[in-house]
């Protein structure tokens, strides 16, 4: 009865190049569009996870290890697995539909998404989201 495929929901991408990666729903298109006549959503996810940071790492090493590579994609609902987790990172203004139209818009959007995800990782919250799914 409750719609759960909403903004800020953490999902796992199941198909495609990013299969097994965790992502967060930025925008949903429940009834599809003309080009995609099925339910789909715009997700922003982690393409390269940050590696394990240990206590004896120097500041330089910590900075290097906490780097995140992001991706933005339109996925069919059938190709994502929703989870019970949410990630409230504000990516609405950064990631939008027109980002996917041109390469340089995408590059700037990914840089900004990477920055926001990295600062969320550094606070230590949402630890589940930034750990690699083992399968």
């Amino acid at each position, binding site marked *: *009865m*409750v719609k759960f*495929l909403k903004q800020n929901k953490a999902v796992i991408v199941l198909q495609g190049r990013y299969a097994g990666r965790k992502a967060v729903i930025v925008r949903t298109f429940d009834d599809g569009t003309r080009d995609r006549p099925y339910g789909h959503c715009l997700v922003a996810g982690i393409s390269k996870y940050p590696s394990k940071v240990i206590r004896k790492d120097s500041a330089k090493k910590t900075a290097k290890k906490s780097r995140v590579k992001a991706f933005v994609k339109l996925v069919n609902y059938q190709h994502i697995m*929703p989870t019970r987790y949410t990630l409230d990172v504000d990516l609405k203004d950064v990631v939008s539909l027109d980002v996917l139209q041109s390469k340089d818009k995408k590059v700037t959007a990914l840089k900004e998404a990477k920055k926001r995800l990295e600062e969320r990782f550094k606070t230590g919250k949402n630890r589940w989201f930034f750990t690699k799914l083992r399968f």
Partner: protein
Amino acid sequence: MVVSKKTKKTHESINNRLALVMKSGKFTLGYKTVLRSLRSSKGKLIIISNNCPPLRKSEIEYYAMLAKIGVHHYNGNNVDLGTACGKYFRVSCLSITDPGDSDIIKTLQPDH
């Protein structure tokens, strides 16, 4: 292992209610459409047969947990569930979107 002792009477009444849903209500049969009804929150009750593969069963239960939709584990395999629906094929999982005249949802999910 709690095995709910399903007496013959309650089992038959579930079959009767299912038959009434088939006649008067709206439903979808099959894994793909069940997930679709769960994603859009159109389903009101999900029924899973007992020989549904455990990974698929857990997946449907997880979706139903997120959508707060009830799941009923049917006391019978997919052949029996297909017969209960009046179909000549096997039905491993089905989703009831509109119960029609039947009170299957009230009897199987008393808290709703």
